[in-house]
């Protein structure tokens, strides 16, 4: 009996853990998109004011701490193969699929055009990311508590069923 009780507690805990993990993952994805926006704004400012070459900017971003640092570290690592390839390979480090696609597309245009066009492309990417972030926020607010409750309830149900 004690074993059954212990098992059911574990099942409920697993359900709660699954819900919390999901919410945590969503929170991380939102934070990463927000940091990606900040990074792109940093790139934009440096291009507009100083015309700093992209490898220097990417190296600076890779040195920063945060959720986007691994993305830019990955870009740095693959820079030898060309910027486009490097950005596209690094985009897999972005957790949200749509944000990943936005970053992937940016790889095709970054460094290819004159400053005005670069800035336009960066503005467009930032704006898309912001829209995505707002949507993710909404989704998180609506779904995260529900998922947490559902997974906890699923754990309880499963425990009752197995007992």
């Amino acid at each position, binding site marked *: 009996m004690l074993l059954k009780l212990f098992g059911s507690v574990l099942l409920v805990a697993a359900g709660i853990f699954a819900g919390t993990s999901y919410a945590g993952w969503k929170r991380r994805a939102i934070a990463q998109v927000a940091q990606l926006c900040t990074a792109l704004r940093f790139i934009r400012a440096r*291009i507009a004011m100083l*015309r*700093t*070459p*992209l*490898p*220097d900017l990417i190296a600076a971003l890779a040195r920063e701490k945060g959720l986007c640092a691994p993305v830019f570290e990955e870009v740095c690592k693959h*820079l030898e193969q*060309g*910027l486009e390839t490097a950005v596209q390979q690094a985009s897999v480090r972005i957790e949200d699929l749509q944000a990943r696609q936005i970053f992937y597309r940016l790889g095709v245009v*970054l*460094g*290819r*055009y*004159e*400053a005005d066009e*670069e800035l336009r492309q960066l503005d467009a990417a930032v704006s898309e990311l912001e829209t995505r972030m707002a949507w993710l926020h909404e989704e998180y607010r609506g779904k995260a508590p529900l998922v947490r409750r559902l997974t906890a309830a699923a754990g309880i149900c499963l425990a009752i069923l197995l007992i």
Partner: protein
Amino acid sequence: MDEELKRAAMLLVPEYYRAVMGLCMPVEDIRLRLGRPVSCCVAGREYFLRQLPVLSEKNLLWTLERATCSSIYAVQDSLRKGYINASSGIRIGVCGTGVIKDGELATIKDISSLSIRVARQCRGIAGALLPYNAEGKVENTLVISPPGYGKTSLLRDMIRQLSDRGARVAVADERGEIAAMNRGVPGFDIGLRTDVLEGVEKQEAVMMLIQTMAPQIVALDEISAPRDVRAVELAANNGAAILATVHGRDLEDLCKRPVLREILKSGIFQKALIIGINEKGRYYQQRSICGEGSCVA
């Protein structure tokens, strides 16, 4: 230093050609022309790598990406003038199709040729040519030669030696060839007392240098346009000695060009250093210039 420059230049050449080209010493110029064999200039002669495939568009774009650090916007102003400055004093001449916007050259598209020019630090070549007059003052000097004869190398060494001997030298390095600045550090030894303003048009640069750096000598490379002449006049009117270079065979050749004839007649320059090449190699000829009517003495 020269070996470093050659290595840096080689890194801009697609790997395919690098191994063969590495054997050519000392490379002065590497020519990449779309759809044609890659060539390199050694001692004034151009050698084609005919045994290797012709240059593909992919390879040309690869070099361009390397040279611009994947950032066309960082070189857009110089690209409009037909060149890119890669790091370590390597200037790349660019040819393609001009894009005209509002009557002005906006950029160059469909790039077809690149000329990777490897600059050299020739220490000591200006030793006997330093333009001191009898009173020990630096004379305004014009270095004259056809392209590729070593005007800039001579100017660089003059700057270095004069600077190390105590003169405050300011360099208006519009094309970044004299000092080859890399993040504020000169790629060449240009002397202890030399200040460099890079990437600014000569007239504006001279104005800024005179107002802010109080130079005793102002150095400029390749004066050709009327605004460059105005830069020289500006420096001369502010009491700085001038060292400048110009394309041409000799003084008589310069006198045929209205812009340069004017400046020779104005009497600003007192001395001309003419570089020539004969069967024995490079030679230097010193001539004095007197203005007022006759342009050459």
